[in-house]
Structure formats: C-alpha cells, structure tokens
C-alpha cells in the first residue's frame, strides 16, 4: 500500500467547527427550555421559523448566488437562527422573523463571504434591523406564564428594563433569575443562561475574558452611577435584559470578537460601558445589541494588538 506523506504534525485534536457550534447550541438549550415554559407555543414557533429560515437562506445563497459548496453542515446557521430567535419577542409575526433571518444571513453573513469573514454578529444585524424597521412589534413583549397555546394573540406588557426606564420597577431578583418576567425569548432567565455559559467555559468553547470584562465593567460603572444617584442598582442591571445573553453568547462570537486576550478585555470593557450608557441615558431601554455591534466595528483595530510573545526583548531602562 502506498504511504501517505504530509508535513508534521500528523495528529489533530479532532476539534471541528461543527463541534464548536454544537457546543454553543447545547449551551443555549437551558435558556430555550425556560422560554418554552414561559412563553409556550410562541417561543417554539419563533425559534422554529428563525432557525429554519436561517438555514434555508444560507443554503439558497450558497447554492444559487455564490455557487459554492454548502456549509450548512457546520451548524453555524442554526446558531445564528437560535440567537436571532433569542433576541425576538415570542409574539413576533412569522413574516417579520423571516425578514430578520434574511438580513442576518444575507447581509450580516453571506455578503461578507460567509462564516469567519463577517465583521458584525449576524444575529444582531438581523435583530437591530428588525428593531429599527418594526419598532412596535419588536418592543411589545408578551407577559410570561399565560399557558402554552399563545403565539401572536399573547397578552403583552412592559419588560423590567422598560419599567426601570419609566421608574416603575417592582420585581424580585428571584423572578429575574429564573425568568418570571417579560422579554425576548432567550433573555428572561439569568440562571439558565449562566448554566449554558459555564458549559461553554468548561468545554473551552469560549474564554472568560469577554463575559467577565463586560459584566465586570457594567457592574462597576453601574455602581458608580448608582452612588451618584443615577440609574438602577448593580444586580438589577446585570440580571435584566440581554446583559448575560449578550455577554456570554453574542459578544463571544468567534468571528466578530478580537482574538488576543488584551483585545478581548478592551472589547468587553467597551461593551460594558456603552451598554450602561445606552440603558441609563439613551432612549432605548436596552443597549446590549448596539454596544456589541459598535464594538464589533472596533474589532479589526483591536486585532492589531499582538499577544504576549515569548522572548520579546524587554524594554531597556534608559
């Protein structure tokens, strides 16, 4: 038999893009379970439509527009679909979701050359596009616990963040933790999201620099503002809205976050500050998506920061 010849190394860790994406999907499942419990059929339908249309658009664009081999097997379209759904209210009409998916995959991802080349998180591109185009539908969140059979007919109400913005918050931290609040699909339960994030950290899918620096910065900044008499307290800030979802799942997206440790920390600090600024001083109650998109734009610049090099000559004291 003829022997194979290739340059070293001759073994591989066995890691693959599919496996990485699979881990992200697994990590998102607990939060998805909570949203099914809270929002019932609506959550199921929104997720199904979002994921299916993301995968379909990716397939169609690659097949007919770009005419290259399909990469839907790497599961990244499913991750985009899931994340997009997580950022939508569970009573969103189906056609808006499809538009969101088209923008996310078509503009957010494929127009830049597909996975790995997109400068902005595709799911967030889709979400922000919808938020600007359909502000009414995108900001009427159904209340939780209305029974299973509700989709577009669900009763709606304000989210905790909206309540904070107009100064009428009376919700216990317990509810925030397990998800007894209104809001987008994936952002309601802090505990479920943290379980997923721990899984991602444990499998080495993400590193802790980005989540920790985002949450840490947001906490410190909020505490300072709170001490000056502005805004809400730290725990509410961290547990409400898409803070944890954004910090652990959206900001850590491989292609759109910086690659070195220092870059990732700066990236996280930026997101933390911008989010709190928008939440406390902007007209939108939620600022996570905008903060991530803004810092995504800075990523190429942050990627110029080089990692600590072994044996770099030390600067001599003069």
């Amino acid at each position, binding site marked *: 038999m*003829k*022997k*194979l*010849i*290739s*340059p070293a190394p001759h073994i591989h860790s066995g890691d693959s893009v599919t496996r990485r994406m699979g881990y992200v999907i697994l990590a998102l499942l607990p939060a998805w379970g909570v949203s099914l419990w809270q929002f019932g059929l609506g959550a199921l339908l929104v997720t199904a439509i979002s994921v299916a249309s993301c995968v379909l658009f990716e397939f169609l664009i690659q097949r007919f527009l770009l005419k290259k081999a399909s990469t839907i097997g790497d599961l990244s379209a499913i991750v985009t679909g899931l994340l997009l759904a997580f950022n939508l209210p569970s009573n969103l009409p189906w056609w808006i979701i499809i538009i969101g998916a088209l923008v996310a995959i078509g503009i957010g991802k494929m127009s830049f050359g597909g996975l790995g080349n997109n400068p902005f998180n595709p799911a967030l591109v889709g979400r922000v596009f919808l938020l600007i185009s359909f502000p009414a539908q995108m900001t009427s969140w159904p209340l939780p616990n209305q029974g299973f059979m509700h989709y577009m007919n669900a009763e709606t109400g304000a989210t905790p963040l909206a309540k904070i913005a107009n100064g009428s918050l009376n919700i216990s931290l317990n509810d925030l933790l397990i998800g007894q609040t209104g809001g987008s699909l994936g952002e309601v339960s802090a505990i479920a999201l943290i379980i997923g994030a721990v899984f991602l950290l444990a499998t080495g899918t993400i590193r802790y620099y980005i989540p920790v620096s985002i949450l840490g910065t947001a906490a410190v900044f909020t505490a300072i503002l709170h001490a000056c008499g502005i805004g809400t307290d730290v725990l509410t800030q961290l547990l409400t809205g898409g803070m944890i979802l954004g910090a652990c799942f959206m900001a850590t997206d491989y292609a759109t976050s910086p690659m070195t440790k220092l870059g990732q920390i700066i990236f996280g600090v930026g997101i933390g500050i911008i989010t709190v600024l928008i939440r406390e001083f902007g007209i939108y109650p939620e600022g996570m998506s905008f903060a991530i998109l803004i810092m995504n734009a800075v990523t190429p610049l942050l990627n110029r920061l080089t990692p600590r090099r072994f044996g770099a000559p030390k600067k001599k004291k003069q």
Partner: protein
Amino acid sequence: MYTILYTILLLGGVGAFAALALFLTAKQFHVQEDSRIGDIEATLPNANCGGCGYAGCRQFAEACVSAGNLENKRCPVGGDAVMSQVAGILGIEATSGSPQVAVIRCAADCAKRPTTNTYDGAKNCKIANALYIGESDCPYGCFGYGDCKDSCQFGAISIDPETGIVSVDPEKCTACGACAKACPRHLIEIRHKGPKNRFVYVACSNKDKGAVARKACEAACIGCTKCQKVCEWDAITIENNLAHIDGDKCRMCRKCEQGCPTKAIHAVNFKPLER
C-alpha cells in the same frame, strides 16, 4: 429667511476654505515630474507583472526615463510593438527582441511516472518540495500543485485534471517569467518561440543517469545524445545527462524529436509526426 442665508454662507465658507487649503497643499507639495514617465506608463500594458524585472509598470517607466536608453530594459508582455512606442517617446532607436514563451520542462503523467506514495499535505509545490522528493521517484519533476498557475496573471497556465500535466498556452503567455520564479524545482524556462507560436524543447529536467531516470519515468530524457548527433544546427547540448535545445539556434527541423527514444522532445503547434 435668515436660516437660508446663514446656511448658504456657512456651507459656502467651509467649501471655499477647504478649496483654498487643498490648493495651497497641492502647491506646497507639488513634485516636478518628467511628463515622459506618465506617457510611457500609459503605453505599457499596466499588468504590473514584474516581468521586466521592476516592481511594476510605473517603476519600469521611471527607469527608462532616468536611464535615457533601453539597454536591458524590455517589457515582455507588450513586446516589440510597445517597446517601439516607448523608444519613440524617449526619442531613440527601438531595439527588437525575439518573442519568447514559457515552457515547462516536465511532461510526466501518472501513467509514465509511477507514484510511490500519496501526498496529503497542503497542495502547494513549495511545501512539497521542502518536505521530500514528491509522489514519484523523480527528484526533478513537476509536482502539479500549480504554484506556477497561481502566479500567472494572464491565465496562460492550465493543469489537465485527468493527467495532472501542466501546460502553457503560447497564445496567452507573455513570457513575463513569474511562473519561472514561482516554480521551486526550476522547471520553467523562458525561451524563444518561432512563427505561428512554434517551438521545440526537451520536456524533462531529470539530471540522473539514464537508467535511474528511466526507471523513475518513462518520458525522461536519458542523456543518450541521439538528438545531439542528429542536430544539424548545433543547437543541442547535453549536460548532467540532460539534453537542452538552444531556442535561438533551433531551426525546428524536428529531426531530434523523431529520434528521441523516450519522446522527451516536444514540438508545439506542429502536426503530429509520422513515425
């Protein structure tokens, strides 16, 4: 009413200021340049292939103007037509060069050159060359991973998907030499081409002794000197068990091709020989 007035005044003012600033800057940093450089650049093909030995067409034009003559300067892409125009701009006599073409001095496919192993690394000739001998026993032959094809700006090089043989289209080839530089095994020669894009060359670079070369590849030049003996024009030299046909001396009589026992001599754009 005042709003419109202020707007016009402000925008007009900003515009005027910017125009003045641009004007002054342009004046300040103006570089006096020989207009012939631009003229020559305009006549050049602007492929920026580097075939002339300069970084690009602009640099070539600068070199022509600063030297004032065309010694050792030739745009292989544009050929005589472009060079006579350049000479015209410089006001000097044009020198003509012979048309050239790139040839790949290996024509072994898998049928002629049995493989001894399978390469599984990145498909790149430089990587394979740094690693080992290649998939066959011939340490001189073509890998077929297409470094030359990637380096060609004119789409002149193609790789037959069936046989893996790399070939140059003499119509498209401008003899810029990029492929010759890209080939880690130095298989590509830039040589004279005759009328109707015809040329005769030895399609092998194997310097091993005849028996060794033949064992590795059926189409190898075995250095048997038959072609040298039959050539009436003294165009063929044999060095290190390998024949070479001097493109300038060759009259393309094809006697060498007829006699070659391994059919290593190829004649391009001729009718097939009747043997």
